């Protein structure tokens, strides 16, 4: 083929510019230490890399969540352990005082100590993490426990017939010693004043007799004649209904009287892809439901204190048995928290494995093999020099050099 000067110069130009571009690419890869510097460098690889980056970002976030959950669970664990100590102290005290060797004065002194234990229990029950009460269910900005019993807002039952459009309001000054889970249930349907109701003090286990509303709107005293030693009937809690719509048989309204201000809701965090973990123990799980005399720790302590003040040995003995229940309950809560902490630890390890694994994969896709790239740079450099040398030699050749 006939080769002209233009061809030679064009080839030199193109080859050198191609080599320069390759050198630039290798240099860019080495400088960024990334194999992929723009989507077109490896479109498929980039898509994978982006997916992996997102997974890594998620794993990182799970780590943050887990740290948060761990601090909650650890705070819960140590609080329950303190509660354990307090329960044991109360039980030891009750055991001592149940023997006939102590007299009324000593029992009265013991009653003061039981009051101290109660106060300490309230204090630890109000433990906060980052300003949030960990025993309040999901009412985490509400103080979990008060020292005194208070009448909580009346709540309409979730299974109520919607025919009643009025509102139920609780009020009154509670004078009792123990928590209550008052339930008002409609037994005869009709408007307020026509309908009849019955009342339970223990969350709906036992019921009082049917009653009619006395007036249509005035607050109606809902206490009734359940008579027992621990739950005297002189309470003073009231509930009033506004007259609007019709009450239906089976409609329920609850008024809790308790030290506990939170709710029973769980709080969950994300610890992995579609994996959630509950990080709280609600106060009513930890210290017993309102009105549940057999399990409510505060009721037990109040009962114990009362029996001690009354110098009632039988009452003190009964309290020992109940405190044993409370201890079992507390230990089972502790075990539950412990297993959740364990799960968190397992999960953390799994995530760190996953992170290492994904980081490796990302690096395999995205990162540059520096040794290989350096070799490539060297070889490109040599080729470039050779090309320059050969270009210089070829362009020297001309007939002109031999003409005079």
């Amino acid at each position, binding site marked *: 083929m006939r*080769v002209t000067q233009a061809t030679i110069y064009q080839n030199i130009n193109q080859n050198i510019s191609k080599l320069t571009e390759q050198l630039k690419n290798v240099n860019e890869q080495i400088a960024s230490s990334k194999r992929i510097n723009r989507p077109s460098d490896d479109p498929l690889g980039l898509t994978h890399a*982006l997916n992996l980056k997102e997974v890594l970002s998620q794993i990182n976030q799970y780590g943050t969540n887990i740290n948060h959950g761990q601090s909650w669970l650890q705070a819960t664990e140590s609080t329950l352990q303190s509660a354990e100590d307090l329960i044991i102290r109360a039980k030891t005290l009750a055991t001592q005082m149940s023997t006939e060797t102590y007299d009324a004065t000593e029992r009265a002194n013991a009653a003061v100590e039981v009051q101290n234990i109660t106060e300490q229990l309230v204090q630890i029950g109000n433990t906060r993490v980052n300003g949030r009460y960990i025993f309040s269910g999901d009412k*985490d900005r509400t103080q979990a426990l008060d020292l005194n019993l208070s009448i909580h807002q009346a709540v309409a039952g979730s299974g109520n017939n919607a025919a009643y459009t009025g509102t139920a309001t609780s009020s009154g000054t509670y004078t009792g010693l123990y928590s209550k889970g008052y339930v008002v249930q409609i037994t005869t349907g009709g408007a307020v004043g026509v309908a009849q109701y019955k009342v339970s003090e223990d969350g709906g286990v036992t019921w009082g007799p049917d009653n009619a509303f006395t007036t249509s709107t005035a607050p109606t005293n809902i206490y009734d004649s359940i008579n027992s030693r621990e739950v005297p009937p002189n309470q003073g809690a009231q509930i009033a209904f506004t007259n609007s719509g019709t009450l239906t048989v089976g409609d329920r309204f609850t008024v809790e009287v308790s030290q506990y201000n939170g709710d029973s809701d769980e709080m969950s965090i994300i610890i992995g892809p579609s994996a959630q973990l509950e990080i709280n123990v609600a106060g009513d799980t930890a210290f017993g439901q309102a009105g549940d005399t057999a399990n409510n720790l505060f009721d037990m302590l109040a009962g114990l204190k009362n029996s001690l003040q009354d110098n009632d040995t039988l009452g003190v003995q009964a309290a020992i048995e109940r405190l044993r229940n409370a201890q079992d309950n507390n230990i089972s809560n502790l075990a539950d928290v412990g297993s959740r902490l364990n799960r968190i630890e397992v999960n953390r390890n799994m995530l760190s494995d996953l992170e290492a694994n994904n980081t490796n994969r990302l690096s395999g896709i995205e990162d540059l093999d520096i040794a290989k790239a350096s070799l490539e740079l060297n070889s490109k450099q040599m080729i470039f020099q050779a090309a320059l040398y050969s270009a210089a030699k070829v362009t020297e050749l001309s007939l002109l050099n031999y003409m005079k």
Partner: protein
Amino acid sequence: MSGITLLMNIARGALLAQQKGLDVTGHNIANVNTPGYTRQALVLQSSEETSLNRVKLGFGVNADSVTQAFDRFITKSIDQKTSSLAEYETEKSTLDYVQGLFNEQTGNGLNRDMADFWNAWQDLSNNPGGIAERTALLEKAQNMVQEFQGIRNGLTQTKDEMNINLKGGIEEINTLDDQIAKLNARIVEAEAGGTKANDLRDKRNSLIQNLSQLTDISYLEKDDGALTVTTKSGVALVDGNLHWTLSQQGDDIYWNDITSDISNQLTGGKIGAWLDLRDDILPQYMANMDELAGTMIQQVNNLHYNGYTSAGQTHKYFFDPISFTAVLTNGTWTGTSIPAAGGTYASTAPAGTFQFTVTSASGTVGTDAITLGWTGPGGTSGTVNFAGGGGYVAGTMVDVSQGLQISLGAGTVVNGNTFSITVAPNFTDSAKTIALSSDVADTPANIAASQSNDPAETGNNQNALAIQALQDGQLNIKKWTYQNRGGIQSSTNQLGTMDEYYNILVGDIGLMDSQAGQNQDLQQSLINQLNELRDSVSGVSLDEEMVNMMKYQYAYIAASKMVNASDELLRSVLNMT
């Protein structure tokens, strides 16, 4: 004529011919670096012989003509490949820019912003009552919104730039057409005498090559030397000394000011690439970004709308809500009354089709009581009543469900007849218009993290958990494909998470860019080969010209010796007397 005078004449002719040979060589050397220059060669011919005393004698040399070493086939191939190369080059450089818009290689793109957004929801779920977490979420959401808008606006600007480029390209075509037409006239004039207008042709060839860079063309040389140039699809550009102008009006390109768009007849070259980018490639990415943004808005809003704020309020939007379009299709409808859809379908209601059936007896709208039964998306159903006895005025909108309304026009309806209304979210421009709603933008407390209406449940994170779960939610998201310069717009459902959808989209652009790059390299190497072929025929070799120069130089010297010789002969003849 004979004898010494003849010799003198032969020498004179030789001197002139070799002189001309040197001129041509000089012209070649002078143009060694001129692009498009075709090597010229002097055609020498021995003069007709004559008979002198039965001896046949030649009359020396004639410089017959100057020819071009021109290969029509290679030149045509180069023109075609030039078009393809220019097309891929333009596509590649634009896509290089577009993939830069996505900014993913630095790790600061939408991929990270979306991950941050989801993570912020998780942070909020860890502390649903926390103002800091709420504010951080709004910030991350704002970053994501801005990135969406940035990419989308970048795409729109790039698309707009294509029109500016087109305007310039069309001007250039017009100028080139004009020059080619003028050269046609000069070539026809110059070649009327039979000699080739070599340099004018070179000039015209290089104009043709410039024109090829802009768009695919076809050309044909007529007997008189004039070129007829058309686009590949046959739109006439130049014929002889005539040419037709193209003009751009908005997105349309007109030929000879006839107001009918011919842009589909311009393929290849820079213009072809600009049109493809403007009508297919860029709108496709815009549509897909809109689809992603729309899905994000819709999914987050649907959950957010039904959650509760810190104050226990509900029905708050997180993003500005998407509007719905309602399209009515008649099923069997034989009545004369025309049904119409209206109202504003709630943006958080499910998309789908409402099927209406006339369940009452046939009758006249307004006169008879008419009832339509309907079934809607999400298993909903109900009836719509149009009172008789003048109770309903034809054309009045009546509520159906979720803000959707219908009306019946004056006329009759027939029992059992059906029509349907399809409600679908309108995602057009979503990536451009995506914004935080005024509900939450300045009021972090209005973020609905809770699923309880009790404001005391400050720790309720159920809704935040539900929203963050969208990150891993497998959704059917429409993936658009634009073909035939926007003539075919089709979509298929792509199952995956929103993040995956985006990642694949970036991969698509990278793939398209790298393919354009490979095509460009291929065309470039083809052109290089053709150029070498062309140069091997038409290019100037300096060595060759040097040899030619020596050849003519020595011949010139020899011819001048002949003048000497004949001079001496003449002198000796003159001295004889």
